[in-house]
């Protein structure tokens, strides 16, 4: 309970600070940072959807919440390492956020993909 409260307070506090300092992001710069400089793709996929990390697309967090999370991920047990402003400046983080927001959500339902629909039918229809 105490842990949840601490996390909530940290998130609110972090969000408030971040809201006050939110730079505008550039998606094209963000792509370079996401794919090559910081290799965010290592865990989240180039797609932002595939990999061992959290699914980022569609991005549902506000920029402020996203930035607060990247700075303090240890408050939640996701395995995400913390990126301080020294390691990844605010402007670059904003660029990355803009890029993630621009990524298409290529998730469909399995039944809408013939190959997967076939697998679904053949493997879940046992008595």
């Amino acid at each position, binding site marked *: 309970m105490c842990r949840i409260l601490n996390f909530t307070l940290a998130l609110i506090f972090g969000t408030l600070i971040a809201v006050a300092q939110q730079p505008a992001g550039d998606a094209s710069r963000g792509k370079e940072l996401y794919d090559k400089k910081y*290799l965010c793709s290592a865990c989240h996929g180039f797609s932002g959807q*595939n*990999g061992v990390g959290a699914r980022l697309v569609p991005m549902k967090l506000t920029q402020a919440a996203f930035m607060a999370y990247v700075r303090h991920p240890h408050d939640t047990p996701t395995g995400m390492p913390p990126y301080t402003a*020294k390691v990844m400046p605010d402007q670059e983080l904003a660029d990355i956020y803009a890029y993630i927001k621009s990524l298409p959500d290529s*998730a469909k339902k399995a039944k809408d993909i013939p190959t997967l629909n*076939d697998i679904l039918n053949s493997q879940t229809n046992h008595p």
Partner: protein
Amino acid sequence: MARFRKRLVETGPVGRRGFLKGAAAGAAALVATPPEAAEAQERQLASGGSATAATPTQAALNVDVGNGRPIPGINGIALSPGSDYMVDVLKQFDFEYVVANPGTSFAGLHESLINYNNNVKPEFLTACHEESAVSMAHGYAKIEGKPMLVLLHADVGIQHASMAIFNAYADRVPIFMIAGNWGHAVQAHNAQDMALMIRDMIKWDDEPRSLAGFADAAQKAYSIAMMPPMGPTLLVVDEDLQEMTNKEPNLRVPKFKRIQPPSGDLGSVREAAKLLVNAENPVIITGRSARTANGMTLLVELAELLQAPVSGGDRMNFPLTHPLSGTGIPGTQADVTLTLEVNNAPVGRNGGKTINISSTILSVKNNYQDVGDRYTAADIDMAADAEATLPALIEECRKLVTADRKRVFEERGKKLAEAHRETKRKDIELAAIGWDASPVSLNRLYGELWPFIKNEDWSMVSWDGFMGGWPRRLWACDKHYHYIGAQGAGGMGYGAGAAVGAALANKKYGRISINVQTDGDLNYAPAVLWTAAHHKAPLLTIMHNNRAYHQEVMRMQRQATSMNRGADRIHIGTKLWNPEIDYASIAKGYGMYGEGPISDPKDLAAAYKRGIERVKNGEPALIDVVTQPRG
């Protein structure tokens, strides 16, 4: 009883090994143009083969032509060499293949295998690296359940092979290895105790001093390799013993009899049966329990009898399509857990009982304790082979199942089937995420292949650990050869070799072998692609090309951020880019079909179709797919 076929070799001028007599002069001629060759030969003859400033020494020439010393026998010709007898002994083990990177230390055996034995059972496979040779034997054994013969060139060959040997040891795979001992020309290729450097990662070794001793040691080496827990064994054979004329009187090939693996004692089996039949939520966890296809059949029989869920295992022990495949009914705790050949078996949680059947404790080495079993405080602990014990356990359970228990089992079975269905539904739904992503997602890479193999006899001969486990989540894996698992000790460089060995095992059954190949692993010893092409392995290799040693990319990311510095430099030493490696060209260079790189998932189906056609025609093919980093 097989009889040693004594054979006299022709003693003509170009008889067996007779060419070596004049090989030194021949070598000089080979490296020069014709007039120069004549001059070189004249100089050499005039000097009696001694060193001059202009020509190499006789000793150096001898080494160049592979003749470390004069061949023993009459006029340099060995009569009935020891290596022929060795082949007679080895024939009893019904080896399908012998694999080696050629080496002078086992030249006698090599020659006897291809000439005396006509290169049939075993057929000689040419490997370009000893690590590939042993990895091939590793993959082969996982399909066939028996060893491939591997020849290693002295201490240098053993050192090349050592990583692959460690993988096989940790993975409990039988491999029969022979290393030559040879120090006549290169002192560094000799050792007083050749096996020392790998003794901690093999089950047994010996260095027989006579041919009779070889027969005895070979039978022991085979039996020990095949006895659960299975593992590699090594014989060290001096080149003299191979090449000298056999003079041992009354030498016969002793009869070989296979030893049966140990089953659990009946008292413990009966106690285990009582616990299992009376349990409300029994679960079965497997490790390497199915040594053979029958191991799977037996486990299905036990699971269906008890209506108990089966999970675990890095290779196929139980059909993954079976309604009882799974970890149990959600929200329930196991009251009895049966573990079969599981390393470090979990002891009963929340007061539950544990029954452990494992052979691992029967062969333990001090230096690699985590590879084997730590002490398991199970309620019933049998030091026995699980597969050999299952028939008795099934029988004892069957005796105890009453009509009332059967009704309970049936109700449990319905809930387990629903849990299995739900897990499958979720897995397949997750596969839709990033289906259209470029580079290609691992779920798409595997999912897109399924239509091309589902009506074929197929075998997945690579690990799916860095790939989200998608083949086991999406494909109908229900045969023992549908998935062969991981490296054993986690040593990279295993994948491509194991895939080729497994594909050669599958070849005679007409199976299509599929290898989804990580790029980092292939680059340890890529020339095994040539071996696949040369020996026509029906193997489709699909590159999981994420252009990195990706595990280490993620590790460096964590390392750098935890030090609060340099998160933009983690590519240094971890990425395989600048330049990007062209795997299709590499495949073509080794003489096989290559295609790619493919980044757009829409191009996959057509490429797969072309690749599968090649494989169905009995040749290997490689398709380079640029992928999302992880599955």
